[in-house]
């Protein structure tokens, strides 16, 4: 059964400013996308769902477990893939890093090794087990970071811009890999192609969900929103230029070539 992620009357405030406000949200789909401009609240939403940050008001829960009160249980069910995989690989050797989460959960050594071998095989990176994290390429790091999350067998994985540092080939590979995972995935991304086959897409704008729909309509709304923002910004620039004639005059004088 797909886990149930719930937010009720949630706000997140920082420096006296509300960076996220969600009245009511229920996520029960297997594939949920989150899009929005930089600073729109995507990462904040993901971090709330993993209990990495507390809501200023309201309640966030995963299958009834409160992310603040039951953080330990929540983190056992929810995995988090950060944008830069280098940031989440904490051990020098790949094999040790894969085992890190299991060790923290008290899984015995023999079971740890077996589960690590299984997940490495599944992702086709068994040959990386004895490599050092520093020697991995960007694509390999992405897979190792994903393996380190999947080995803990979470029911849900939160991906924060997973293809942000990948080239096209590796982005497509990640997309195929994601499609084959039997878990719930919540993906915050700027890669709109990645979301085409998703069940649901949320569009965030300045900390508020402004669209919540199937990928087609939601992404159309997002594109329209981006176009509106662009138009407003262009107008603002034009207005600013019009309000500062002195600068324009000086520039024209500086660069003009007077006829002899």
């Amino acid at each position, binding site marked *: *059964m797909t886990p149930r992620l719930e937010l009720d009357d949630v706000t997140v405030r920082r420096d006296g400013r509300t960076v996220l406000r969600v009245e009511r949200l229920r996520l029960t789909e297997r594939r949920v996308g989150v899009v929005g401009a930089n600073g729109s609240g995507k990462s904040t939403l993901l971090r709330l769902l993993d209990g*990495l940050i507390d809501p200023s008001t309201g309640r966030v829960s995963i299958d009834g477990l409160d992310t603040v009160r039951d953080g330990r249980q929540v983190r056992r069910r929810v995995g988090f893939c950060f944008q830069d995989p280098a940031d989440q690989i904490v051990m020098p050797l790949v094999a040790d890093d894969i085992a890190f989460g299991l060790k923290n*959960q008290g899984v015995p050594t023999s079971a740890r090794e077996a589960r690590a071998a299984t997940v490495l095989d599944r992702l086709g990176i068994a040959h990386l087990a004895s490599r050092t994290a520093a020697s991995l390429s960007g694509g390999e790091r992405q897979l190792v970071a994903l393996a380190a999350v999947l080995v803990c067998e979470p029911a849900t994985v939160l991906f924060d811009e997973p293809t942000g540092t990948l080239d096209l080939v590796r982005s497509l590979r990640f997309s195929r890999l994601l499609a084959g995972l039997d878990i719930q995935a919540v993906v915050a991304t700027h890669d709109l192609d990645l979301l085409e086959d998703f069940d649901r897409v949320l569009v965030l704008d300045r900390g508020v969900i402004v669209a919540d729909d199937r990928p087609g309509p939601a992404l159309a709304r997002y594109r329209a929103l981006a176009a509106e923002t662009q138009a407003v910004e262009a107008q603002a620039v034009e207005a600013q230029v019009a309000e500062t004639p002195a600068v324009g005059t000086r520039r024209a004088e500086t660069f003009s070539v007077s006829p002899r």
Partner: protein
Amino acid sequence: MTLLTDAQPRPGLLRSVPAPVKLAGLVVLGVVSAVSTSPTLLALIGATGGLALVVARPHWRRLTGLMVVWAIALVVVVILQLVTRDSAAAVVSGARMVALCLPALAVMASTAPEELLDTLFAATRPLRRVGLRPEVLALTVALTLRFVPELVRQIETLREAQRARGARPSVLPVTVPLLVRCLDRSRTLADAIVARSFFDRATPLDHAPPASVNREGASAHATSSTAASATPHASRPLVLNTPRPHAGRRPSEESWKT
């Protein structure tokens, strides 16, 4: 990899000796070297260390930089002793440095870091009784090993960026952005460590914190049974101890992007 290079330790006689034995021997030699003033004994320990290093068959080419730095330090110490004291003191100081460093190099070259970490963890386990957490110490060492190559790579990138902008090689233009990057990375890294349940791990001497201190801990008793029944992985070992006061804390609440 080893603590010295990113290459695997080579198989051999010293490699097959258990890490705790090597480390115990190193501690004994270190103490003797530190207290002894006999040049003969220090030279003997140094020679033994040198022999052990040869037996450990390190990747010499990758050790070149380290050996050069060490040799420079050795020369500086000897010269300082000659200038400030006398030749006898210079000989003892030089021999002591050799006696301290060569056995340590031999141990590091022949031992995988995970073995060293496990030994360190086991050796510091009694410190729990005075409130210290050996796993945090082990993680600190592991993170140092993990991020030194990243740091070197970042310095190279920053130098290239400075060169591309026509700047002369200088320390300050590299140091400031490096510090900013390190701080930024440390915040994300802290989040990643929390997300990967490091602060949720079971520790035998964990004590229940006051209910007022930790919301998560305060509710653990009340919710553990319902949580266990609700989880799809209920068959997995469940951490039943109550978290320490800082467990579940968010180390970088200001760190996340929006």
